[in-house]
């Protein structure tokens, strides 16, 4: 694979994760109390971890991400909130925002996979899509066990 396109692809992905960090940073700015901030800080730290992981792969020149997509619990598709959380956001609001964000990333990579001409780039996007599905799954499971306990 062409080194330039590899670098380019990963730079794109790293950019996405940086944007996610920013997403949480922005929400933290709106947060009013400690519980919100702690939850947002945890998720932000996770995204920073992703940035570090992808940066590491970039410098090593190889993507080692599992190609297996996580099971879709089907929550993202039907959760309503497109609106931004407010200062009164509760755990449900934060989780929904997180799930939606991961879904958007997954959708993006899916379209990139479809559009990619270089089979190597395509493979990287496939792996990134799978990775995002795992992130989404993580939040969906949290939602199931912590929020929708009774449904």
């Amino acid at each position, binding site marked *: 694979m062409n080194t330039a396109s590899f670098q380019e692809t990963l730079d794109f992905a790293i950019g996405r994760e940086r944007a996610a960090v920013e997403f949480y940073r922005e929400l933290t700015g709106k947060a009013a109390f400690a519980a919100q*901030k702690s939850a947002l800080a945890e998720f932000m730290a996770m995204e920073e971890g992703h940035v570090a992981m992808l940066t590491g792969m970039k410098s090593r020149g190889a993507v080692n991400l599992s190609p297996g997509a996580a099971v879709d619990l*089907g929550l993202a598709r039907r959760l309503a909130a497109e609106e931004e959380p407010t200062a009164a956001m509760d*755990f449900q609001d934060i989780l929904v925002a997180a799930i939606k964000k991961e879904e958007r990333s997954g959708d993006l990579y899916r379209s990139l996979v479809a559009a990619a001409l270089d089979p190597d780039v395509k493979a990287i996007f496939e792996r990134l899509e799978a990775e995002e599905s795992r992130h989404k799954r993580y939040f969906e499971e949290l939602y199931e066990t912590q929020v929708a*306990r009774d*449904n």
Partner: protein
Amino acid sequence: MDIKDFIAPFAVWKRAFEKPFTVKKPIDERPGAPRYRGFHINDADKCVGCGTCEAICMNRAIDLVPVEGRDAKEGDSGLRPRVDYGRCCWCALCVDICPSGSLNMSNEYVWIDSDPDVFRYTPGVEPKPWDGSALGYRRAEGYRLLDGTRVPMPELDHHEAVKSFLELVRGWSREQAEKEADRCVSCGLCIASCPAHMEIPGYIKAVRDGDLETGLRLLYQTNPFPEACGRICTHRCEEACSIGTDGDPVAIRWLKRYIADQVELADYSKALPRKEASSGKRVAIVGAGPGGLSAAYYLALLGHEVTVHEKDEAAGGMLRYGIPEYRLPYPALDKDIGYIESLGVKIERGAPVGEGRSLASLRERFDAVFLSTGLPAAYGLDVPGEKHPRVLDGVAVLAAATRGQVLGLGARVAVVGGGNVAMDAARTALRNGASVDILYRRREEDMPADPDEIREAKAEGARLVEKAIPLEVKDAGGKARFVWNEATMVQKEAGKRPVPEPIPGAIHEEIYDSVISAIGQGPELSYIAEADGVEIRRFKPVVDRDGLATAAGKAPVFAGGDLVNDRKDAISAIADGHRAASAIDRLLSGKGA
């Protein structure tokens, strides 16, 4: 004496030519009869190590011993009976009484060894040739020493029940309670499963003995809410009950209620321990639910001055505002709370902590703080249209009912969810004359609600719609048009519970006057400021085993109840409160943690 008397005896000689009675030596195979009471066999997987065999053995031939690879777990002590054949008399009363039916006897009776110590073994654990023997003594069909059937609990007829908020479960008479208490074998397997580790066999014995003051004292050792828990406890103890392994478990919850119901509040102080001398220490409690008041009770008993800060106009928390009065009538709850207050616990009602009364200020004024603010906020449906004015919050509906407000639910009500809040909201709606559909995303057997509640909700006329994934709420001329997608359960990952998968195109909708959302609840944590330094993770204060939160600065902060534990029931909150009270006492009295 005649001649016959001399001749007749010679008739024995005819036997010389007949087949002898004896059998050949070495012994021919001579199996024991199919019912023979031979060496014991035990299905070690079915056995729960309750020790009832040991209790009935009049020879003390049975020991309960630990066995390798079988640790204690809920409903199983991990111990297994070991039989000493130096003492066993083969009466098989152990087989007759075995609650699970795991212990039986083979029809094998020959076992020869020169070492007398081998005649002692743990059936079903130490392999023997007669293991799994199909023959041998078994309890006869229709014969049991123990009673596997629970004494029926008188309940209002469901047609009657649904017309009012009268208490559904009527409680037992003395005779009924004593009969039910008689079913208990005092094995104590239940104690570990109770979050508060109540002394269950002890208070059941007190019922049997008619000594209710002792019973009450045993209840209060670990639980100052016997009236409430005697009605609405999630009774995990009953799931562990050894009698329940082959029959109805002992109705531990109803027996607890019986004790508390029978003793008048005025007589409580005679049975219960007095407070210790004043310690001069002050403790603040936030939230007057079961967790907070349990902590208050034990702290007051230990001589500390306790002030409870409650946001609502009455104490009790979810016991009052979340549980309808047909399950827990207010006088019963008031009795529990009344006794706690009688010890000098001060409850400041209508006094939320937050603005004006900050956590920081409590930590200034008190020597310790216990947070038990529970999960008061209902989570939303999170589907498009969830803000429709006819989409109501289940917790708020129940609280409004408690406050006696007009609910105005209308004639057709949908309740979304499968927990106890959903069932209670549905039954409250039924009592307000509505026809009710309960929509749940999974199947009935997956519902987290108490099976009794589900059964009663259905009996009272609620219609259960299973596998209904909410999609949207639309307006229909002021009413709510609720749209859901029928699901099929798909086992997506081994070992995990199946996931409801929407069936493409199977969209249903129904117009309701109200849609009550009861999918789950969350905490209200805005009163904890960053400056308090209380460590919070995923909307839960982080606490150690005693309930001590990580917090910088002045008075220590403890937390318990639904706010931090995962069981999210009253008895766990009560246990948390008790544990925190003990830890606070140790801290304040300098006894060390």
